Each structure stands twice: as structure tokens, then as C-alpha cells.
């Protein structure tokens, strides 16, 4: 079992374990945060399947967009009394140790790393997938692309129309 496999297994366990937490946790805010880790694990799996662009899109759209939307939904629909709002911090010492340790670890990696120096002509290697996706979207997949943009516009207008308040 190589390190590659171990990291793959790690992402798989994160994905499925967090998804199980989404299903079986009692508190909905916990479920929402577990969903975040699950989506993050899926983004990691995309990297293993050499879908780098899709991994970035997954993090930006799912974690940055959909999850925030779901959390808004949670906060707007639960009764205020059922949320226990805690702003106190606990376990400061362990948090400080973990934070400093992580920073030192990252710092060591940055200093020790033998950063890759590109050749004169990078060619197609770096942007293979993004470039391919862009070209395909503008040629072969132009009709689905346009339909998707119309769908997004319709969803935007529909959501705004439904959510507006009734009183003039």
C-alpha cells in the first residue's frame, strides 16, 4: 500500500464517514457541518480522478454556495430557543498548541520544499483540463451550456419570486 493509496483511503473515509454523520446526527447544524467535510472529501476524490477543475468548482460552489444556503435555511427555520448560542472558547491551551504546531509544520514544508521551477515553455501540461473544458463548452457542449445559463436565470427569478413578502 503506497502513500497514494493511503491518502485516497483517507479521503474516502472522510467522505463516507461525514455522510454517515449527516444522516445519523441528531442536531441539524452538526449535520450541516458534517456535510461540509463530506463535500470536501468528494473534492479530494476528484483530484485523484485527475479532475482538478471540477475539484475547485466543487469547493467553490458546494461549500461556498450551497452549504451556506443550507445553513441560512437552518437558521431561518428553527425556533430560536432550540439553538444554544455559545461564544465562549474552551481548551485554549490545546488549541494554541495545535495552532502553533500546524503553523510550524506548514512553515517547515514551505522552507524545505524543493519548489518546482518550470521550463521555458510550459506547453499544455498545466492547463490541460481547464483549457479542454473551455474549448468543449464553446463548441461541442454549447447548447447544454446555454440551456444551463437559462436554467440558472430561471432558478434565480423563481427563487426571488417565491421568497418575496406578500404585503406591498
Amino acid at each position, binding site marked *: *500500500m*503506497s502513500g*497514494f*493509496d493511503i491518502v*485516497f*483511503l483517507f479521503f*474516502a473515509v472522510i*467522505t*463516507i464517514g461525514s*455522510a*454517515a454523520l*449527516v*444522516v445519523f446526527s441528531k442536531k*441539524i447544524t452538526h*449535520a*450541516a457541518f458534517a*456535510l461540509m467535510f*463530506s*463535500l470536501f472529501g*468528494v473534492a479530494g*476524490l*476528484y483530484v*485523484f*480522478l*485527475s*479532475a482538478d*477543475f*471540477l475539484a475547485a*468548482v*466543487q469547493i467553490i*460552489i*458546494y461549500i461556498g*454556495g*450551497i452549504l451556506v*444556503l*443550507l445553513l*441560512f*435555511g*437552518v437558521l*431561518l*427555520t428553527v425556533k430560536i430557543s432550540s439553538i444554544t448560542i455559545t461564544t465562549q472558547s474552551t481548551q485554549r491551551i490545546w488549541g494554541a498548541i495545535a495552532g502553533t504546531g500546524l503553523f510550524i509544520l506548514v512553515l517547515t514544508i514551505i522552507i524545505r520544499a524543493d519548489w518546482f521551477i518550470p521550463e521555458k515553455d510550459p506547453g499544455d501540461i498545466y492547463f490541460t*483540463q481547464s483549457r*479542454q*473544458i473551455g474549448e*468543449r*463548452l464553446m463548441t461541442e*457542449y454549447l447548447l*447544454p451550456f446555454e440551456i*444551463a445559463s437559462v*436554467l*440558472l436565470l*430561471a*432558478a*434565480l427569478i*423563481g*427563487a*426571488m419570486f*417565491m*421568497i418575496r413578502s406578500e404585503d406591498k
Partner: protein
Amino acid sequence: MITLDSCLIIGAALFTLGFLAVLTKRNAISVLMGVELILNAANINFVAFGFFRSYEIHGVLIALFVIVIAVSEAAVALAIVLNIYRNMRTVNLDEVDSLKK
């Protein structure tokens, strides 16, 4: 280790868990989370088949469109859920059973 089968197994587990959430959860937003898990499972399958069974990037492109549809679904469904909450003061799906007030 990283083969088509292992990716499909991960996708299947994710799909099953999402399906379980859709079936068993009372809160409408938890059901939406289950739907997101199902869409992610489908995406993993698209990308895995695209990676292991073809030299093209159709799988990634289809997955992109699935993400677009997931976004529209989440926005519209949350608007509906908030409207249900405004009208009935609850989002528990077993209590939302009347067709009109």
C-alpha cells in the same frame, strides 16, 4: 487500490446514505442535504467512468452540468421550504400535510 470499483463503491455508499436521509429525515432541510449527497454520488460515478473508461473529458463536463442543476435545485427548494415555514410555522415534512390552510 484506486480503481473503478473502489470509486463506484464510494459512490454507492454515498448514494445509499443520501437515500437514507431522504427517506428517514423529518426536517425538510435534512432531506435537501440528502439530495446533495445523492447528486455528489452521481458526480463521482460520472468522473470515475470518464477517467477509467475513456480518454475524453465528457465525464467532467457532465459533472459540471450536474453541479449547475444542484445549485438551481438548492436555491429553489430552499425558497419553497422558507415559504412553507412562513405559512405553517414548521418544516417537518410529516406535519406539512394540508393542501390549503
